[in-house]
């Protein structure tokens, strides 16, 4: 079925090509998940895959993590600003993680492969994987009290790590020498490389069936389709100006709450998101990049107005995003960003929901556990003598909606990373999970109530373990909608082997001893609608 080059492929051909491209992106994620080493990738699925066109415009993505997917087009565009395309060769795989270069935070390392056909670059395959360690001051590369970007780990500018001849051993060793768990990291790097390799092979099949001109014309069409769909979606929102805000608990250094503010202007089929009133760059690691902010806006528009829009670069065309340089969402290069990726990005979605609360409440969900709920345990496993790091994220209650209660324990909005089973944790880390239970009564009351969070108790079962937390919603609770009550805040308690008990801050780092317990209670979801009676549910904490 060799199609002749033509100006505009028929819609059926476009659809056939879309299917093929999407299948390729999905297959990439499958390969990383199945062959990677870190539990974070293989158990929890903290990874994403995408294809872009030769200019870095997103054309297809896997069904992965929204926070990643929004930035991958920008990654390639920024990559191309730094590496001229004529330097690229078939078989290259370049790695990079700079937040300021289309990035989000250092642990999310992108592997980029140029795909050639008919003697020219036709596309890029991008595999993003969250490395369980990228070096820096603390195991797991989360430094809640970081004051600069270099404390957060190894910064990788565009670096050709693989070429047609195979790996560039010196560059690989340079990377591996600067991260913890070199062997596990090397396995992850190979998995990312393998996924881009498979994408290349599959794309070659597409280009052998249709010539490059036809495929490129189809891609143009797909971008136009998505643009039209996004315009139609915006038209479903009433014209007007909407203002919303939400607050970060603090900046990780014990500072004040930080506002995330948005002013949205809907004008027919255009939407402007102005974040100028958002607070200044934080001293600690809660800054986000403009790329992360765009990912959040795109996510919010998709869930509010057009869940079926095919995600690609065309969607962004009717959206204008204004971000003030020097603000929390466009920090100076030297500022730390590790937590902003999954905490501040969620605040942006919450602020947008807040803006629309009185206009389209039935399309929104009340505040959920919009935090990664991240706890990192790192320590030597006495059984193997090996140093291990567990990166675990925790879901909480889903917010209620106009027509149903929120569900218990789910990951909301920008992330969708899974938990690690207790049996896997106990077999691989010096930790015993004593309890994983629903935190009953933690969802906010309302006509429909918010979902409950969870309780998980970690018993430390090794002599030297350190823990890092990167958690929001400890101070500012998940909001209710239309009179619904807020959900309970996130709460972490340390119970020492000696019996002493203390509350742990959302962003902290501490040393633990054998027999210590961390009792983590995730936040509940907000309720929807004023509760019928005000003798609300039992509020004593469980």
């Amino acid at each position, binding site marked *: *079925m060799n199609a002749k080059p033509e100006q505009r492929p*028929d*819609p*059926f051909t*476009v*659809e*056939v090509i879309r*299917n*093929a491209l*999407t*299948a390729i992106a*999905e*297959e990439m994620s499958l390969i990383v*998940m*199945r*062959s*990677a*080493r870190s*539990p974070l990738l*293989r*158990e929890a699925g903290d990874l994403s895959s995408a294809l872009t066109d030769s200019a870095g415009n997103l054309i297809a993505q896997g069904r992965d993590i*929204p926070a990643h997917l929004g930035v991958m087009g920008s990654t390639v565009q920024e990559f191309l600003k730094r590496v001229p395309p004529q330097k690229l060769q078939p078989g290259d795989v370049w790695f990079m993680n700079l937040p300021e270069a289309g990035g989000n935070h250092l642990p999310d390392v992108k592997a980029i492969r140029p795909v050639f056909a008919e003697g020219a670059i036709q596309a890029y395959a991008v595999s993003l994987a969250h490395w369980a360690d990228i070096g820096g001051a603390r195991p797991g590369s989360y430094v809640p009290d970081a004051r600069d970007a270099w404390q957060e780990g190894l910064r990788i500018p565009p670096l050709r790590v693989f070429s047609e001849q195979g790996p560039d051993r010196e560059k690989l060793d340079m990377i591996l020498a600067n991260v913890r768990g070199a062997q*596990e990291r090397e*396995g992850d790097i190979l998995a990312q*490389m*393998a996924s881009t390799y*498979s994408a290349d092979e599959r794309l070659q099949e597409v280009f052998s069936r249709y010539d490059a001109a036809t495929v490129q014309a189809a891609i143009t*069409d797909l971008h*136009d*389709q998505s643009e039209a*769909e996004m315009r*139609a979606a915006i038209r479903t929102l009433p014209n007007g100006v909407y203002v919303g805000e939400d607050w970060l608990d603090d900046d990780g250094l014990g500072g004040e709450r930080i506002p995330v503010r948005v002013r949205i202007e809907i004008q027919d089929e255009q939407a402007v998101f102005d974040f100028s009133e958002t607070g200044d760059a934080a001293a600690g690691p809660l800054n986000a990049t403009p790329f992360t902010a765009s990912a959040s806006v795109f*996510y919010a528009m*998709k*869930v509010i107005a057009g*869940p079926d829009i095919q995600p690609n670069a065309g969607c962004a065309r009717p959206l204008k995003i204004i971000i003030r340089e020097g603000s929390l969402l466009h920090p100076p290069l030297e500022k730390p960003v590790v937590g902003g990726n999954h905490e501040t990005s969620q605040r942006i979605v919450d602020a947008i929901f807040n803006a629309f609360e009185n206009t389209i409440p039935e*399309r929104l*969900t009340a505040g959920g556990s919009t935090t990664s709920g991240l706890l990192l345990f790192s320590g030597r496993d006495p*059984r193997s003598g090996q140093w291990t790091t567990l990166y675990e994220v*925790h*879901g909480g209650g889903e917010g209620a*909606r106009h027509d149903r209660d929120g569900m*218990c*324990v*789910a*990951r909301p909005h920008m992330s*969708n990373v899974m*938990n690690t*089973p207790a*049996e*896997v944790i*106990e*077999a691989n880390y010096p930790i015993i*999970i*004593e309890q*994983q*239970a*629903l935190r009953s009564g933690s969802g906010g009351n309302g006509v429909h109530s918010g979902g409950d969070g*969870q309780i998980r*108790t970690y018993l430390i079962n090794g002599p030297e373990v350190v823990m890092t937390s990167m958690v929001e919603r400890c101070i500012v609770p998940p909001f209710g909608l239309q009179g619904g009550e807020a959900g309970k805040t996130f709460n972490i308690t340390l119970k020492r082997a000696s019996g002493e008990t203390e509350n742990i801050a959302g962003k902290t780092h501490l040393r633990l001893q054998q027999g210590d317990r961390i009792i983590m209670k995730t936040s509940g979801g907000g309720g929807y609608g004023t509760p019928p009676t005000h003798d609300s549910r039992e509020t004593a904490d469980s």
Partner: protein
Amino acid sequence: MPCGGNHNEFPLTTKFRHFSRVNGMSDNDKGTWKVGIDIGGTFTDVLAINAADGEVRTAKVRSQTHDPITSIVSAYAAIRIDWSTVSDLMHGTTMATNAIVEGNLAPLALVATEGFRDTIEIGRQNRRELYRLEVTPKLPPLVPQHLRVEAIERIGPEGQVLKPLTEAEACRVAGIIDSLNVDTVAIALQHCFVNADHEKRLGEQLSSTVKYVALSHEMSPEPREFERTNTTILSAALMPLTASYLDKLQAGAGDHSNIHLFHSAGGMASVEAVRSRPLTLALSGPAAGVAAAGKICSELGLDNAIGFDMGGTTTDTCVVIDGKVQVGSDQRLAGRPVRQLMVAVESIGAGGGSIARVEGSAVRVGPDSAGSEPGPACYGLGGELPTVTDANMTLGYLNPERLLGGAIQLSREAAGTAMQTLADAFATSVDEAALGVYRVANASMARALRRVTVKRGVDARSCSLIAFGGAGPMHAVALAREFGIARVVVPKFSSVFSALGCLTAELSYAEQHTVRMPSADWDADRMDTLCRSMRDRLSTPIVAAGHAAGTIETLFIGLIRYAGQSDTVEVPFVLPCDPEKLGADFRARHKKLYGFATEEAWLFESLRTTVSAPSQHSFTDIHETGQEKSTTPISVDQCWFDASGPVTTRRFERGALPVDWEVEGPAVIEDNWSTIVLPPGATAWIDATGHLIITAGTGA
């Protein structure tokens, strides 16, 4: 997951008359019969072979979903036999699948380790839909909180007892269960797959209190508490239903018939084995078709094949590698994890009934389906939206002169009317729109085929495509060309293919156990003991069924990974197990699957053992009773294969084609249930066994 059979589904409201095709006209009391029966959601297929003279009878009757036994009785009646003349019944059923899909499960209680009763509600905490807020993030748990009981006990990750289960505690738990008024209990304790003592003792205690008990270390002896607990709950919840069905079945069979059931891993199991592990029926229906595809491969000497079963609403794909049907232990049913060995079937919700629609300037096919109510527009049963079947009708593939399944008169005009809306939207002709829908449908089928081959690390180009189901043979050649697949096989008896699969299947049992032996710390004695004891245990029921120990085959597969990986690679081996060879084979497989392998140490995670006795029937000795042979087309029509316009296409009756006579495309070969499309460039012939073999060609 499919809940229907492998056939186009028809609306229950149609004036559907029992269609039966009886080959041969013998007396009812001429000896005993071996019978394969597959009860699907819509149809029950039966194929029987006479022990005395090898006569074969087949039929297809409506399934009686409210009472599956009735389906068997009416299938018997259709081929004029009864229980008294059936020596062996080999039986596949979608009963368990349907019960799970429809949520028609027994109420039950769960016993979990102290602190873990909510595991099934917490799940893995990820949401199903990334961008749909109105969809609940997860499925609700199968056991509500008030029926979840915690037992004070704790086993550690190495099997050490961290907190013993006391007699008093076991009694306390039994007391609580007693007060819950349930007949069925699932028990799933932490780390029981390493040390099952607590589960066993609790199970004994509870077996005096309740009728059905499922223990997680028996149902799914693998780590990951959420998945194992769910598997155990589903097993327990199917027990009452399965027991009552098997009781009826055994009452019907009396002393006359031996009953074997088709299990999800692609072989036969005894009634007693299924009774204690009813979840093994979860994929019973599709597994029969998959096993038959595997059997065809071994008989035709094909190494690798893809099974392609396209029905009205779902399409199932599976792979056969090196002549072996692929099984996996990491699948989902109706959105819930099921960790047990099942044939690796990849299902997509697309088939002949998938609706094509305009979305902005784009065209989409599916996921909405006209299903069996009202069905495609060309069925004339009230459907108005254009479906894939309507595209096939418009292109001239389906025969308007023929009653589909002997019952439904197809209308080309109705198909064209439905297709017109698409044609208008894109300013093309109706035929071009139909051609487009046909291509887009193939593209989504290609995605399913891609997934099933990628997961198994097999290059689709090395495979043959085995096409069955109502719509499979219509799309098979076009799909084969997409992948560069050279050969397509449309098996004989393709309309009762699953029943044939039952009749030709091996008696087999399979199990998987966690071992966790590092290559650096290899314990050859332990491995040897494990393998032999597993083999002996699995062989027992086969020997009991009368097979000589010498005829029993054992397949050992090591599930191996590098330290730190989660997914394992399947590496077959023989006794005595040689770790050097195992390591080399593992690295070779890993490289094939993922494109790289390193020299580091590896871990033998689990042992999978399959024990089987060869089946007594092969395709070659089941003959379709002949019809008069003819090389004359039954009609000559105009069919579309590409945008250049319609071409003159001969239409043949499949049963009339002489063996080895080559049909060159463009042509259509059909019987009452399926239509095989041969585009220009393809060639087909009936082989000596009766399979239709197609050389796909290139078309251009």
